[in-house]
């Protein structure tokens, strides 16, 4: 990211006498003008994020009562989540599945980002657009595309049956955790490639030459110089994939089947058929908290390991 913070102090422009104290104030104080410009977006973001978050927290302490809510604060939802095994099981399954998808995505995308950063000499922009283009198209359609590939009557099954290789469709392809992990990996690839590419691109090439001059072979150089220097990109990629995928609804709903149900589906259930909004709110918060928890734990382990080395 180019950190060219807005230019040095400018010469005071020719003061044109203007009426009004506010505009006089704005003319004089540069920071104030900046704040005024920023305020619409800031107001929208604060109102749009803090208010919904507040009502989410408040509602998570309510309980349903008929068609309305019992607004006496209680910890019932949270104690249910802690004691009834279904919630813990779904939560840990979600963390595990999106954790697997995150790690696989980063492992598969690293060589790709490396290739664009170090080996593509011309048309770099074109390569980057090529890598990110699918990500901008409808998430729903990309997931749907995998249902067509893996489905019960999908491309693989129907084609294999058609040419007589198998008698009945292979059921493990669709409606399984594997199907969900494959689809998530495919759908979030751009989120891994871009941050890793940026951090690789930032590496000072003379450091690599120095390592080579000092006798490191390609692999040693990669593990001792390139990889450690690109870790910020890897961490950013993991964050950008892990956090949203834990709560994914579309992929498990279309491809998961009973074995692949995730916490996002359970949350949706509370706002739909189960009609228990307070429980849904509590589940959403617990999901966010445990996602953050896993991430902080990973970071702590990593820095502990680094400290030992």
């Amino acid at each position, binding site marked *: *990211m*180019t950190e*060219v913070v807005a*230019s040095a102090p*400018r*010469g005071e*422009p020719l003061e*044109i006498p203007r009426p009004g104290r506010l505009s006089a104030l704005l003319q004089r104080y540069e*920071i104030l003008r*900046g*704040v005024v410009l*920023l305020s619409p*977006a800031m107001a*929208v973001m604060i109102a749009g*994020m803090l208010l*919904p*978050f507040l*009502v*989410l927290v408040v509602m998570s302490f309510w309980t349903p009562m008929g068609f309305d809510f019992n607004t006496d604060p209680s910890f019932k939802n949270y104690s249910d989540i802690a004691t009834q095994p279904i919630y813990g099981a779904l939560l840990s399954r979600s963390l595990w599945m999106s954790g697997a998808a995150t790690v696989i995505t980063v492992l598969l995308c690293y*060589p790709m980002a490396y*290739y664009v*950063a170090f*080996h593509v*000499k011309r048309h770099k922009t074109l390569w980057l657009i*090529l890598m990110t*283009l*699918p990500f*901008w*198209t*409808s998430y*729903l*359609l*990309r997931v*749907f*595309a995998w249902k*067509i*590939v893996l489905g019960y*009557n999908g491309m693989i099954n129907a*084609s294999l*049956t*058609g040419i007589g290789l198998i008698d009945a469709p292979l059921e493990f392809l669709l409606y399984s955790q594997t199907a969900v992990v494959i689809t998530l990996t495919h759908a979030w690839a751009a989120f891994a490639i871009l941050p890793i590419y*940026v951090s690789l691109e930032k590496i000072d*090439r003379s450091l*690599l*030459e120095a390592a*080579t001059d000092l006798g490191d072979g390609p692999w040693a*150089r990669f593990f001792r110089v390139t990889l450690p220097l690109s870790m910020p990109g890897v961490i950013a990629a993991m964050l950008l994939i892990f*956090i*949203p995928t834990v709560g*994914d609804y579309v992929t498990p709903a279309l491809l998961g089947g009973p074995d692949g149900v995730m916490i*996002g589906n359970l*949350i949706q259930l509370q*706002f739909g058929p189960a009609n228990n*909004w307070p429980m*849904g*709110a509590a589940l*959403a918060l617990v*999901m*966010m908290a445990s*996602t953050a928890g896993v991430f902080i734990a990973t970071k702590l382990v990593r820095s502990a390991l680094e400290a030992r080395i």
Partner: protein
Amino acid sequence: MGTASYVNRESPALKIYAWAFVAILYAPILLLPLFSFNSSTYIAFPIEGFTTEWYGALWANSQMWTALWNSVWLGAIVAVISTALGVLAAKALTRYRLPARGPIIGFMMLPLVVPGIVFGVALLILMNRAGIPLSLFTVGIGHVLICTPFAIATLMPRFEGFDASIEEASADLGENGWWTFWRVTFPLVFPGILASLMLTFTISFDEFIMAFFLAGTEQSLPIYIWNQLRFPERLPMVLALSTIIIAISFVLVFFSLWLTRLGVDTKTGDAA
């Protein structure tokens, strides 16, 4: 870069990997157009025959048209609002030495890492408590929230990319702030604005999960598609619709990414 370094020699293995990667990235998406022209309702190789029947059925489907117009209007309004907010914010963040600039940017980018479902249900509860009925309007509120960070991220490199002294010259020559913006700043950042409009339109046009919670009985195009997925016999028509949507998204996004990267220092290779 530029000068070839002796550190990285050509690696055929890596090159093959890269092309295989691209192939797998695009293959599932390209299957949708392929099978949308297949005359069989079964999605399987070998392909039976060529037909445009499904596109005809789509054309005659009035529900689809309603959903399409809903999504186009929604996307257009969301794009204009979030880009306008983005222009002001990007100018403020690049032209003025604001205190706590880093944390402000971090806060603005927060919606990018909040899971869509959490955002959706939180806004649903807020609308319910505030007594605002669910409609495309409430979907629009949600979409502005997720589109504004993208608008800011697209526009900031554009503002950083040109010399602020041009604006100062305009001010020195007697233009007030308003006219300086329209006659100097706006034309210079125009490609960024165009890119931001196209990008935010596409995001809103394709967004599903927030619309799923916030649309009430109204239908956006992704919701319409979601509802069609329950009927296997309508699958070919959904494929035809998907093909059109993907084609439009590809064109819009390609141009907006192209515009974003033009004029911006490509050396930084920044993730817009």
